[in-house]
């Protein structure tokens, strides 16, 4: 049970390991890139740094999905939409940051607007020349969309597979909208050719190393925030809703409001992950909204292990590492591997990779709320394992 001021990680050993590995990555990658000379065999190229940064962004997206799916049973198949929106908000800042250095040299209009013969900046581009404004939008726009969407969906008691389907529709609709040139987001091509962020050159190794470290920090902070939620009494209500929604309502808990808060918070994490992704990758376009992206993200969580938080992140990193390797070595087999992975994990490892970790490592004995007679870790491991319903 979470108490403010009490060290939260005391009973979460696997989580502590997770944060330790994250800290190690944030320390070692900069060393390998910055300190070792380019001729050293251990030197890490900018490509390597960016790749790891990308994995960490995906890890954050997986974390966001696990929070709502693993703990509240809300299976969103459109979460990549929030990731993409966060990315677009960052992209708009980066486009305006280019200024007169664009191909057409227009100090205000991004290149694609000049190309489309637009005379002035659309109203929704105002303010994006300020970094802080753009960062506020990275949080606010996904939150607002999640709030509106969730308000209608949860109030109408749309649950289970129906919810999953409409989230697919949401991301698909956004993809089609962003493909249109008239939307004012660069259409098909999206945004690219970024020059710098806050004056730091986006082509330099140093900037990429800093972005990677920032991503690691954001991931760790998100992890701790999610942990604080799921370990609080609200977290227990959320699990209660997952297991017996009408019973929770009967006890007087406003189920819709709990779902909405959680969904909005999850969307915000996904948005921040997207915003960190774009400057590292250097491009954002409507394909990020593709329904398959959201489904892939759900597979990461299933592979890593639902309802553990760190498992979801680990799943994202491992599956994407596999993707990087296989799409390079055997490009034609990747999708088969992904499909087979999902089937095998569902059948053989319902608790994902995290389910392989022995319970005693996963969690130290708790002492809060009375002295446990049984090892709570075993109970919890069992609890996660038994939750095998698909939604």
């Amino acid at each position, binding site marked *: *049970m979470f*108490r*403010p001021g009490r060290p939260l990680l005391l009973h979460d050993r696997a989580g502590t390991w997770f944060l330790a590995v994250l800290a190690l990555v944030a320390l070692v990658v900069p060393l390998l890139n910055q300190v070792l000379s380019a001729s050293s065999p251990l030197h890490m190229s900018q490509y390597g740094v960016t790749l790891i940064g990308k994995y960490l962004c995906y890890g954050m997206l997986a974390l966001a999905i696990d929070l709502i799916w693993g703990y509240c049973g809300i299976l969103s198949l459109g979460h990549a939409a929030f990731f993409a929106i966060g990315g677009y908000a960052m992209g708009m800042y980066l486009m305006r940051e280019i200024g007169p250095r664009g191909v057409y040299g227009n100090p205000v209009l991004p290149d694609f607007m000049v190309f489309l013969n637009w005379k002035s900046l659309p109203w929704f581009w105002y303010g994006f020349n300020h970094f802080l404004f753009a960062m506020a939008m990275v949080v606010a726009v996904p939150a607002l969309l999640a709030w509106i969407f969730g308000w209608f969906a949860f109030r109408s008691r749309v649950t289970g597979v129906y919810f999953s389907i409409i989230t697919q529709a949401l991301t698909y609709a956004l993809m089609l909208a962003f493909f249109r040139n008239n939307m004012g987001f660069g259409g098909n091509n999206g945004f690219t050719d970024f020059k710098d962020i806050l004056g730091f050159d986006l082509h330099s190794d140093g900037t990429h190393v800093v972005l990677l470290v920032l991503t690691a920090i954001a991931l760790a902070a998100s992890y701790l925030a999610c942990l604080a*939620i799921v370990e*609080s*009494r*609200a977290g*227990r*209500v959320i*699990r*209660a809703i*997952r*297991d*017996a929604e009408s*019973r*929770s309502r009967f*006890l*007087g*808990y*406003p189920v819709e*409001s*709990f779902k909405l*808060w*959680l969904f909005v918070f999850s969307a915000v994490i996904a948005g921040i992950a997207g915003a960190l992704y774009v400057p590292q990758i250097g491009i954002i376009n409507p394909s990020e909204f593709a329904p398959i992206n959201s489904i892939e993200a759900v597979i990461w969580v299933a592979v890593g292990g639902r309802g553990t938080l760190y498992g979801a992140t680990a799943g994202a990193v491992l599956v994407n590492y596999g993707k990087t390797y296989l799409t390079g070595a055997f490009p034609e087999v990747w999708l088969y591997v992904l499909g087979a992975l999902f089937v095998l994990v569902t059948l053989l490892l319902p608790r994902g990779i995290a389910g392989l970790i022995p319970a005693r490592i996963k969690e130290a004995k708790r002492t809060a*709320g*009375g002295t*446990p*007679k*049984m090892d*709570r870790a075993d*109970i919890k491991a*069992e*609890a996660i394992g*038994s*939750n095998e319903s698909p939604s």
Partner: protein
Amino acid sequence: MLRDKRLYLEDLTVSFDGSKALNGLTLYVEPGELLCVIGPNGAGKTTMMDVITGKTRPDYGTAWFGSDIDLLKLSEAEIVAAGIARKFQRPTVFEQLTVFENLEMASAGCRSFLKTLRARLTAAEKERIEEVLEIIGLSGHRWALGRVLAHGQKQWLEIGMLLMQNPELLLVDEPVAGMTPAEIERTAELLLSLEGEHSIVVVEHDMSFVRSIARRVVVLHEGRVIADGDMDKVQRDPRVIEVYLGV
């Protein structure tokens, strides 16, 4: 009229499609009393519970909770808040939460997301949970998950969840259906231990169970009370014999 009883049901009449589920039912429940309601199928036992909890509105009659609360004017949620708790037949506990956490969920107090996010288990809440664990006999299982409990233990846990809200009136629907003899015995002890603290109305088919707990038994038939008194008196009542044995 005297207003010193816990529950006043007077002249309640409920019709469904022309047939009367309740037909002028009048019944009083004393404070702290353990009352058993029996009767053949269709006698109106469940409809009576539904009227008390606000699920069904009567066509006629009055239902007062104490001297000042008119149950017919309250919503279901308001009736719960007023202190009437109902235990349904099928146990529903939170399977993935521990027994302790199940009781914590049920404890009176904050219900909103932001409040529960910051909520800490207060000493008073913890004490009440311990108390209820003791009453329902699950102290030794406090860290067990809801789903590993036996059927009887789930029923007790659910009664415990109702007790967390300190209800003045507890309505219990067929608590021993599907229980083993040992569990039935334990349930009888549990309900008897609550007598005095809470008014309890138990609807039950199992006659030996009713005999083991009841001080006062009310027999319903065709929507009205046909006998009221201790078990021996009720069993000797010719109308009860007729209804149950069809003599």
